[in-house]
């Protein structure tokens, strides 16, 4: 059954009690309709973000693993830097490139002051970490917002739907199920959409937040390690 079939099936007897979801939506109060559409868009956006973040974290993890393997393999850091600087990947590679760039700039400018070099490198790496984390965390707030506000938006639609059913009771002076049921169905549908949008959003938010924390710890660990190595180098040069 396609959408067109349903529309054509609905068209002759709009007043008859056809109970498809489409019919339900089409005959809802405009407030409820707005809520439903908004929540549907939220749900679409949440899932898009979730897909995007899943792919992103997968890539970050993989590139991080690759980089660390290359870093600890004993290759010369200059070589590694040259291969990475052309196309810096995310995660630890970016940190390494940033630190190496600062290091190289200090030497290429023939500035012999090693005093501030370690501090500069640390700063640069901190900035790189912050940028990476910001990149990873971008749009996660959307998930949090939808997760917490979705049920409330759905509830708002529910309240509007219940109001509709009470108004129809008042209008028809009749409390039979046929009068009350459409409004209540509309109301429950709004709640359902709210939950459908909010539950995945909450789950994904928790998942991605923990993932971001893990990556941040990994970045910081690498930064500390790399700073230690560089500072040893600096001390040896002095």
């Amino acid at each position, binding site marked *: *059954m*396609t*959408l067109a079939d*349903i529309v054509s099936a609905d068209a002759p007897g709009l007043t*008859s*009690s*056809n*109970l*498809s*979801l*489409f019919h339900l939506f089409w005959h809802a109060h405009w407030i409820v309709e707005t809520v439903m559409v908004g929540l*549907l868009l939220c*749900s*679409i*956006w949440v*899932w*898009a*973000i*979730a*897909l*995007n973040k899943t*792919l*992103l974290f997968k890539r970050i993890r993989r590139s991080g693993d690759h980089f660390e393997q290359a870093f600890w393999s004993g290759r010369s850091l200059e070589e590694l830097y040259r291969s990475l600087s052309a196309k810096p990947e995310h995660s630890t590679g970016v940190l390494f490139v940033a630190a190496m760039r600062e290091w190289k700039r200090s030497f290429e400018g023939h500035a012999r002051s090693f005093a501030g070099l370690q501090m500069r490198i640390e700063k640069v790496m901190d900035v790189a970490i912050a940028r990476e984390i910001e*990149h990873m965390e971008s749009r996660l707030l959307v998930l949090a917002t939808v997760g917490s506000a979705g049920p409330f938006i759905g509830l708002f639609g529910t309240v509007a739907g219940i109001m509709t059913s009470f108004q129809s009771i008042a209008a028809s002076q009749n409390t039979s199920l046929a009068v009350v049921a459409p409004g209540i169905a509309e109301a429950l549908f709004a709640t359902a959409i709210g939950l459908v949008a909010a539950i995945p959003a909450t789950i994904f938010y928790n998942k991605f937040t923990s993932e971001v924390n893990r990556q941040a710890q990994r970045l910081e660990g690498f930064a500390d390690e790399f700073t230690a190595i560089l500072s040893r180098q600096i001390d040896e040069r002095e």
Partner: protein
Amino acid sequence: MKEQSTPMRGSLTISIIGHVMVLGLCLVAFTIEPTEAPAIPTMTVDTISIKDFNQLTQGVKDAPKLKVDEPKPVADKIDVPKPADQVADKVADKPEIKTETVAKQEPKPEPKPDPKPADKPKPKTPDYKPDQIADLLKKDAAKEQPKTDTKPGPEKPAQNTPKFDADQVAQLLDHRDPRRQVAAADALNNQASVGASNGAAAQLSQDEISALRARISSCWSPPAGVDSNSKVRASLAVFLRLDGSLARPPEMVEATPSPLGPAFIESAKRAVLSCQPFTMLRPEHYQQWKELQLDFDPKELLGGG
């Protein structure tokens, strides 16, 4: 940020496609064909007051008497219709009756020869004739046959002697009135009948009440200090005769405690005494106004005037 925008667009597309698919699935899964359930006819319930009910059940004096069928005995058990006394009588009578009936039942031609040959042979023995003896012998033979027939006769009553029957014993033990009746539901009638004596609505009609109130408020002169805003109230029990006059002096039932109270009650009693007879009360409803409780409320009695 540029490298990120492409996967975002891709995942957004995937998300939209997924949502459309899920919605389509829901449209199929949640589409409920309206079932052709027959509309349940609603039952309208009328609430009637006790007054209405009493007036419905109130009898009409000149209604035709309900034709009551002769009282039938209670059927405790089907197929044991006889009262206990009759059964007992019959058991006592049976042996005598049965012997007679058994004799009667025997074929008439046969017993008649019996007595005659029995009597005849003795006188006829003197004139001895061999032919006669032969005849007699023949007749004796004929006589013996019927006798063998009659023998089962007396045995029959023995067969009919009452056996032990638990139902008959139960009937003998039953001392209830055999003519007692079952009050079944269908025995109730909806015809106009003489009706219950207290079936009338236990209320006075509105015009009777208002006439009574008007009369009392016209007779009543409230004591000084009582006007329509006073919070004093009193109720008197008034006992009336059929002609509307007082059977005995009115009695105070209750009154609000107030310094005005005694004077108020006295004035109310005076009003009732001076107003009698209360001819506006119809004698048909004497049962309802034989004993009246009159409330004296200045707000009601004086407010209107």
